């Protein structure tokens, strides 16, 4: 066992940074992945800011913060689902469903009930996903691709395909969309609070640790006596609730319930953010911090592209290219050897 004693760090090489200095230790706590993301983010900010100093205006930073709120919420729950070893593609249409339900119920019964109804529908939608997956034995990708279509249809059916209600004069919805607490926009607060809760639960409770265990090796988790099914059901249910919460934000921001147009494509963005933030799609690996960094980076990217006034076709190219570059930098720093499929 001498070898171990003498060089315990190096031999655990690929990912484990040796823990020597305080800086090192701090970096380790953040994770190489996150440090790289941070570097990529700083580089991006420097690039944009050097040409467009307006970027640093407080108002612009608020703009970025509010623009990412909806997608950020979805990225957070997507992260939890991915950590568990699943995937939830249906979050986009669940958000659309939440948006119309909140606006419609609001019209009849006020904001509180409207929001609660939306979250209730989200709970149901999430549970349906969970049940289909666990008891119907349907692969999570197929299951949630199917419910992506189904929930979209339901949102269209209940709204008859029309934008619903008008929340632009309601104090609660206006507060969500444009209010602020301690000078910080409500939307940013909501995102930050959800992120913080997710972070704390994942990191500091046995529930969170069990999610990592299940996603990392479900056989190990099962044999160790963890009730995997219950976790899957619960996590999908929560994903549904948070997705409809995102829908409530869409309603508040746009002033009406949007059955589909407000939420289309959000699911892929959420998955992208999670993956960019370092989640392994096989499960068991990733952090909320990483995902949030990725969400911010995507938000900054979109903002910068508009500041530069890039033509929208170039925007697609730029977005794709920058995404690749960010990940390449991040990965090459980790020094993994270049064989096979990266995770």
């Amino acid at each position: 066992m001498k070898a171990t004693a003498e060089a315990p760090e190096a031999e655990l090489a690929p990912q484990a940074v040796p823990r020597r200095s305080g800086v090192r230790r701090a970096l380790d706590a953040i994770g190489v992945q996150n440090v790289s993301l941070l570097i990529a983010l700083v580089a991006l900010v420097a690039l944009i800011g050097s040409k467009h100093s307006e970027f640093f205006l407080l108002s612009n930073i608020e703009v970025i913060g509010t623009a990412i709120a909806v997608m950020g919420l979805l990225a957070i729950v997507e992260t939890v689902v991915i950590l568990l070893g699943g995937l939830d593609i249906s979050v986009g249409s669940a958000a659309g469903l939440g948006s119309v339900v909140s606006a419609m119920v609001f019209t009849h019964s006020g904001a509180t009930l409207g929001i609660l109804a939306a979250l209730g529908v989200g709970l149901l939608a999430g549970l349906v996903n969970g049940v289909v997956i666990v008891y119907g034995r349907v692969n999570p990708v197929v299951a949630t691709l199917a419910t992506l279509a189904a929930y979209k249809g339901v949102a269209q059916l209940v709204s008859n395909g029309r934008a619903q209600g008008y929340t632009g004069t309601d104090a609660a919805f206006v507060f969500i969309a444009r209010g602020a607490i301690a000078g910080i926009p409500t939307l940013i607060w909501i995102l930050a609070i959800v992120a913080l809760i997710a972070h704390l639960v994942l990191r500091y409770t046995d529930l969170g640790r069990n999610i990592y265990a299940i996603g990392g090796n479900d056989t190990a988790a099962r044999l160790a006596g963890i009730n995997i099914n219950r976790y899957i059901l619960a996590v999908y249910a929560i994903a549904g609730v948070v997705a409809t919460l995102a829908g409530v934000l869409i309603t508040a921001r746009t002033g009406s319930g949007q059955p589909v147009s407000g939420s289309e494509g959000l699911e892929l963005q959420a998955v992208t953010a999670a993956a960019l933030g370092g989640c392994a799609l096989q499960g068991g690996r990733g952090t909320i911090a990483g995902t949030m960094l990725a969400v911010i980076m995507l938000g900054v990217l979109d903002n910068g592209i508009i500041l530069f006034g890039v033509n929208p076709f170039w925007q697609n190219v730029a977005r794709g290219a920058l995404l690749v570059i960010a990940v390449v930098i991040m990965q090459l720093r980790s020094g993994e050897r270049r064989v096979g499929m990266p995770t």
Partner: protein
Amino acid sequence: ACSSGQNTGAAPGSGGAAPKTGKLTIALLQKQGDQQYFVDEATGAKQKAQQLGNVDVKVIDLGTDANKAISQLDAVIAQKVDGIVIVVPDQQIGPQVIGAAKNAGIPLMAADDAIKDGTGQEAPFVGFDGTQMGNSVGTKAGELFKASGWSLSDTRVIESWKQDLQTCSDRVKGAEDAFKTATGGDLPQQIKIGTDNSVTDAQNKASAVLTSNQNVKHWLVWGCNDENETGVVTALQNGGVKPDNIIGVGLGAYLTCKDWRAGQDSGNKAALYIGGPAVGASAIQVMVDHLRNSKALPPKTIAHTEMVDKTNWQKSGLVCT
């Protein structure tokens, strides 16, 4: 038994077929069938069908997928529907669409976006003209701009649209041209935003625009549709621009009307009401007339449009949900 796929033999024309009796099935294929405008159009079509009696309308959403349009068109042809009304996702597929229907001897008409066959001959059309719609928007915006007394230098126009949709580009161009004519002057500096035609996308992108134009005082806003226009206006207002400093002219009026109905002060100053239900209804009407009574399909049925604002929208027949 090889076939080169070229059309052979005389294709049955669309006119002069024997009148049909009994139940009619008409396929309504629409691009972006999940947009409110098209939803309304389909509703109008169905209501008209019910009113005429014994007519079944099959509504099919094509998204923005031209390939899907061909597949679904093939399917309804194979299933032997009696007539086809199509809103193409892309006008370039006109020749294939017209050719396929002609080959099968099924009468076809285009709605919303006109299409031509390989020889340049237009298919019977019902709907609006993109450029003309844009003209109405531009004219109204021009009038409001003149009345406001703003100067060109402290004003910007935000134009927001899905840039790979031809009809959207036509509308924006139409608005620009008409604005100049109406004001007899130039356009203020333009800021063009590419969106996916959704409110949220327009809103997110416009927020960032505000950042890089801190010292602009006044804003003109138009776009491909109400989604784009209201999204931009909302973003400006959320960013602290007073409604008085915004002249937004919508296209469709189904979203702008929400502010008006609520009596909310807003930058949405006017909108071109386009009667989606009316387009759907008249498409079914002419098609059924053609099938039952052998009336030729009229080459152009331009639907009613009307510029509305917070004072008169209710009179136009617009239903605001």
